[in-house]
């Protein structure tokens, strides 16, 4: 197969509405910024039935395009992953394979459901690899202060505290990476595990930081995508992200146990913030579920958190709705306790992580009320406080690991 300098991967599944826009933006970006390079676009599709592939095929492009289909097992379709692409990991595996076969120097992947993608994204994701010598480019988005709460209260603080690198959007979905890293990814023996189904984002980020690849971030602006299935179950979503996060935590214990504090990760691109239109959130509903949890999940929570921290959780559940706050220290211990409970396999991983959902909702409700009158910086400072708490309490996780 011919060598290509650049490879852009798009994983898709029933994205007929948006794929045209994404492919055009990618094509334009390649033409505008990398006209001298030989580039190829790879669409890895999970067998869409709404004509996604036909649209890609009929779009006239300046660059060579490749259409791959990977099998999605019926079982995988039943519970739709949070990213809307069943078997996204398998899709990426094909992309990595092509990157290695074609000896691509720089690659990037973008979501197929993006509405806000512009040609500049391609430049922003690829340049750090081509010109800056970075191996992995994580995205930075400007998001509403209430958005991305799983990222903000679990994934970001935890990966940051564990691996000491401040990657703000570890599960962004749009990444750039070097050919070297693609080869490394491909060699990992995970493609028959759940990583093939979901959690590929956090997996890519963690593998890159844990194995000492050169990492940077790039500012892409707003991320707006096709509205996802509103019926998506929160507990399932949590399960998919957290299982991978915790698995990697177990895998890389020896790498993270001695890391203290964290360092900034270089960022490029022009940073600006989106406006803060008021979003209506049903905090009461969240707290109701949390209180149901306190009433009903006592056994499980005591088992995971220990009677002391369960007592704390029980105590905060008595706060009135409008004054409800989830202390940062307690939340940190909750996540660390869940991580070590997962590691010790005290119960089925699905039950364990789904039982975290009511606690997560309480934490989210608390954050939403705290940040109600804050601007973007204020909310970000709140998250920074939480991160510091995670870093300071890291010893607790290490001590409880064994």
């Amino acid at each position, binding site marked *: 197969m011919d060598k290509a300098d650049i490879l852009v991967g798009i994983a898709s599944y029933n994205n007929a509405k948006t794929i045209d826009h994404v492919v055009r933006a990618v094509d334009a970006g390649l033409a505008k910024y990398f006209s001298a390079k030989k580039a190829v676009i790879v669409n890895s599709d999970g067998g869409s039935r709404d004509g996604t592939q036909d649209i890609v095929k009929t779009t006239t492009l300046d660059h060579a395009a490749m259409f791959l289909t990977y099998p999605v097992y019926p079982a995988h379709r039943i519970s739709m992953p*949070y990213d809307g692409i069943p078997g996204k990991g398998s899709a990426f595996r094909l992309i990595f394979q092509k990157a290695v076969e074609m000896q691509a120097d720089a690659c990037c992947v973008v979501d197929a459901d993006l509405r806000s993608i512009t040609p500049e994204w391609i430049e922003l994701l690829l340049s750090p690899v081509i010109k800056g010598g970075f191996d992995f480019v994580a995205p930075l988005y400007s998001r509403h202060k209430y958005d991305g709460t799983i*990222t903000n209260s679990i994934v970001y603080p935890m990966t940051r505290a564990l691996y000491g690198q401040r990657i703000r959007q570890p599960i962004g979905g749009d990444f750039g990476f070097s050919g070297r890293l693609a080869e490394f990814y491909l060699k990992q023996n995970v493609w028959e595990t759940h990583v093939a189904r979901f959690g590929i984002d956090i997996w890519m980020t963690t593998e890159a930081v844990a194995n000492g690849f050169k990492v940077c971030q790039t500012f892409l602006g707003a991320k707006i995508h096709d509205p996802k299935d509103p019926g998506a179950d929160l507990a399932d979503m949590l399960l998919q992200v957290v299982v991978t996060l915790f698995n990697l935590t177990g895998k890389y214990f020896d790498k993270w146990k001695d890391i203290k504090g964290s360092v900034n990760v270089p960022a490029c691109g022009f940073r600006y913030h989106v406006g803060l239109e008021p979003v209506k959130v049903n905090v009461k509903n969240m707290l109701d579920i949390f209180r149901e949890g306190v*009433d009903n999940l006592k056994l499980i929570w005591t088992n995971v958190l220990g009677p002391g921290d369960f007592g704390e959780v029980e105590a905060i559940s008595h706060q009135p709705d409008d004054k409800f706050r989830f202390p940062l220290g307690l939340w940190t211990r909750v996540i660390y306790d869940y991580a070590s409970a997962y590691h010790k396999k005290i119960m089925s991983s699905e039950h364990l992580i789904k039982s975290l959902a009511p606690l997560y909702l309480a934490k*989210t409700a608390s954050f939403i009320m705290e940040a109600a009158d804050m601007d973007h910086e204020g909310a970000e400072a709140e998250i920074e406080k939480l991160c510091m708490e995670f870093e300071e309490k890291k010893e607790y996780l290490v001590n409880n690991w064994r």
Partner: protein
Amino acid sequence: MDNFINLLFQPFRNFWASLAAFLPNLFAMLLIILSGFLIAWLARKLFLRLFTAINFDVWCDKAGLTAIIRKGDIWTRPSDFFGRIIYLIFIIIFLMIGLSALRLPTIGNLTSQFFLYMPRALSALFILIIGYIIAGFVARGILIAAVNSGYHYAKLLAEAVRVLLIVLILAMALEQFGIAPGVVIAAFSIIFGGIVLSLAIAFGVGGIDTAKRIIEKRLEEKKEEKGNIEHL
């Protein structure tokens, strides 16, 4: 006269003959039982070694098995406890084999029935253990799912499912054990049906208001826009 003496001594002779025939059996039984004790003792030692090697006690502590034994006020180490059970099982088996060596019709029946029951008893026990674990697992799954969807009677629901499953499993185990199968099935149907019916009535009568409230709440929620933040 000879005849009479013969008549007189015949029973003794018979007795002696049957005794002579029986004595080897008796010895065989004693030998089997004695060697049974020896083998049981050896097996126990062996298992204790094995238990120590695999850190069985710690495993029991972590799995909560120790706590279950303690509930029965047994305060030996878990490995000792299970070692003793293994010892007892061996003794019982060898006792049964030994008794059958006596070749007495009544005992023979007993022992053959015992060995007939053994596999059934084991599979019944197996069903009980596996069933207990499955019931716990299913109930926990339901509990968590119910809580996450904000259902108010999560624990009640999970407990109800657990009880139903346990009743089902008990019935299965008894059925497997072969104790009066007709009665077991009848009793099971009555109990299971009874539970379901009473639950239905309880929910029906007691739950009308609740159901109404839940439906109203759902409708209200539909009306007012559900909080739309992106969790990821």
